């Protein structure tokens, strides 16, 4: 049964291949069947393989497909490695991916690039699966770049608009900067271990390096570079808000549920490296904490429904990074899973709203959709509640609460991280319910002619259910105490070490976080439902801050000034190739000499004779004198 694992990435790949080759020649129904079916089958096989794997006692399963490269000891192969960590990831990827594919058949129904869309989407799923199933870092890198390519293609899916193309290019280049750091990390890892196989590296690293050894720190930081690029963390977060130019299902799948969490996966996968490099791990925590705050503030000011969600995604991944940084590995994975459910749900809901309002993105032009789109409203509300961590009933509460508690209680945590996370939770619920209230409450500002069809509603409902019940697999000590996920992950990821004598404080921390998230909701209620005039006033009196938040803290302007402009300027300056000018100089000199000497060839016979005579005299004199 386990041997079927290879089908999991292979099926989406075949789907993509068939759609690329024959997509334009087969009917739309056929395209949908192939596109959705391949991922659906992969999801089924994942469940099959997963159950077999869990019921077996082994801690990991390897499957060698073929040997890729074998040169002088450098021998990465196409080999899949299944362990609990990758199992959770492939489950989320195939299952959420399947739901989003189903949704897309309705969302993209009228688009002329229907088959192209599904080809890209299938290719993405395939690359993402390779990323998380890879047995070695080079194969992981293949998946890593593959998802980058698909992200590029899908952001720029509507290629006729130049803005989409620019956003796509930005996403690709910014993530590539991170990837390059990661590539250098791989060179160093190979240099140190003579292999890129992940299990071997993880096994050998503690023997080769002591905690805090310089090489380990550098490598961990380089890997972190790759992670922040892909996961849109500081300082490479700028591409994600622009990436919303892609179709909404793409934002749901790639820029919320799966690809952007690849960084989380990488760090969790290489956790041994980060434990050997406390400095790097601290960087992870700091980046997470700062990012979650900055992105949260930006989310408060956005008008575009999808941009709110984009900043929210950056912020939530910040939480995951924070969890990784304090050593709460499984808490990060838990939040990844729950986040995949509710954020995919929110994006799909937002996509439905945007589609039914004829591609209106500005939520201040929506309003009052509660009655007109009940299915979308209720599912969106559940997703939002989960994001805002409304206590007890939502999955988001359990996953985020877990992180908050561990940030405080972990040995590597401290009060500052905790305060940042806590304040972040407050902002999160504020911007989330701002979005809900503005979009679905108040007076209607637009007309809706039809409702979402079943193909759209069903995935929303399924994701909504998961966003509610998904959290019950991991309950805190104070409520029930259940640790299904941590237990599952325990062979791969070590459990977090708590500061001594702190366990009793858990209920206090929880109470504070509950109060803060509820007060965030109240804040949004007060500002946007009770006194709708207030936000405008505040905005005009703090225009400067609003502008900074709205533009994502000015990182775009900064990078424009220090990287893009100089590069373009330099490139334009050099366009004519200055080196070539040297050769042109030689040519001009030769030409000049040619003209000078040509003058002596006047065609007058007597001048030639004169020259001859003078030459003879000169030589004779020389001969006589010397």
């Amino acid at each position, binding site marked *: 049964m386990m041997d079927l694992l290879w089908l999991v990435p292979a099926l989406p790949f075949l789907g993509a291949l068939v759609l690329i080759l024959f997509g334009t020649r087969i009917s739309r129904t056929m395209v949908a069947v192939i596109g959705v079916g391949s991922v659906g089958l992969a999801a089924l096989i994942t469940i099959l393989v997963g159950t077999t794997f869990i019921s077996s006692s082994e801690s990991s399963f390897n499957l060698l497909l073929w040997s890729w490269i074998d040169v002088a000891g450098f021998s990465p192969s196409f080999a899949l490695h299944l362990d609990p960590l990758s199992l959770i990831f492939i489950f989320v990827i195939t299952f959420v991916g399947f739901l989003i594919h189903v949704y897309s058949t309705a969302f993209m129904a009228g688009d002329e690039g229907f088959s192209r869309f599904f080809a890209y989407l299938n290719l993405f799923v395939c690359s993402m699966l390779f990323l998380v199933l890879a047995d070695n870092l080079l194969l992981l890198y293949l998946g890593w770049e593959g998802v980058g390519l698909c992200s590029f293609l899908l952001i720029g899916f509507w290629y006729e608009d130049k803005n989409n193309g620019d956003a796509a290019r930005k996403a690709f280049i910014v993530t590539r900067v991170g990837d390059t750091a990661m590539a250098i990390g791989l060179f160093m890892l190979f240099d140190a271990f003579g292999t890129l196989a992940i299990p071997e590296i993880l096994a050998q690293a503690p023997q080769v390096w002591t905690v805090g050894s310089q090489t380990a720190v550098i490598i961990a930081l380089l890997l972190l570079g790759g992670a922040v690029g892909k996961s849109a963390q500081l300082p490479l977060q700028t591409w994600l808000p622009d990436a919303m130019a892609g179709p909404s299902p793409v934002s749901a799948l790639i820029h919320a549920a799966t690809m952007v969490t690849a960084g989380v996966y990488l760090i969790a996968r290489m956790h041994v490296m980060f434990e050997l490099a406390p400095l790097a791990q601290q960087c992870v925590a700091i980046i997470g904490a700062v990012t979650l705050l900055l992105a949260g503030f930006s989310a408060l000011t956005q008008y575009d429904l999808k941009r709110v969600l984009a900043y929210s995604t950056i912020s939530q991944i910040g939480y995951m990074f924070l969890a990784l940084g304090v050593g709460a590995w499984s808490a990060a994975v838990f939040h990844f899973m729950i986040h995949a459910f509710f954020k995919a749900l929110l994006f799909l809901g937002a996509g439905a709203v945007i589609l039914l309002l004829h591609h209106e993105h500005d939520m201040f032009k929506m309003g009052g959709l509660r009655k007109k789109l009940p299915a979308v409203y209720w599912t969106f509300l559940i997703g939002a509640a989960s994001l805002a961590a409304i206590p007890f009933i939502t999955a988001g509460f359990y996953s985020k609460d877990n992180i908050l508690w561990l940030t405080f209680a972990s040995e590597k945590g401290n009060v500052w991280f905790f305060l940042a996370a806590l304040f972040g939770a407050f902002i999160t619920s504020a911007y989330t319910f701002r979005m809900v209230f503005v979009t679905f409450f108040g007076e209607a500002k637009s007309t809706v002619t039809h409702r979402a069809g079943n193909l759209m509603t069903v995935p929303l409902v399924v994701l909504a259910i998961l966003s509610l019940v998904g959290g019950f697999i991991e309950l805190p000590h104070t409520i029930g105490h259940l640790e299904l996920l941590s237990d599952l992950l325990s062979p791969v990821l070590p459990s977090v070490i708590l500061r001594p004598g702190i366990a009793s404080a858990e209920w206090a921390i929880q109470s504070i976080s509950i109060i803060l998230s509820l007060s965030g909701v109240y804040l949004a209620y007060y500002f946007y439902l009770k006194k709708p005039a207030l936000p405008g006033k505040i905005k005009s009196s703090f225009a400067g801050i609003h502008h900074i938040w709205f533009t994502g803290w000015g990182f775009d302007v900064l990078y424009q000034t220090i990287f893009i402009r100089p590069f373009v300027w330099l490139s334009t300056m050099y366009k004519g190739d200055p080196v070539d000018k040297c050769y042109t100089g030689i040519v001009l000199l030769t030409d000049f000499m040619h003209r000078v*000497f*040509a003058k*002596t*060839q*006047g*065609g*007058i*016979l*007597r001048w030639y*004779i004169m020259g001859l005579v003078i030459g003879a005299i000169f030589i004779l004199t020389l001969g006589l004198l010397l």
Partner: protein
Amino acid sequence: MDDVPIESGLVLASILFILGMIGVLTRRNIIFMLISVEIMLNAAGLAFIVAGAKWAQADGQVMFIFILTMAAAEVSVGLALILQIYHQLKTLDSDAASKMNG
């Protein structure tokens, strides 16, 4: 036979040579230039003869015969060229034949 001092012979040859050279340089008529060239050749020949007489060797006279034959060849080619130039340009002015400038 009274010896003519070698210096006199060489001075005569030099005078002839320089006269010829001045002729080549100053004349524009190609025929006169050719004649001047002949004078220069003969000046060189005279120098050979004088030198041969001085050391009582036949080499000098051999060289002179060479020069004679060469001069003959040169004149025949030269005159043919002159005829062609006259034919083409209707003049014997050497400056007129300046088509082959750089």
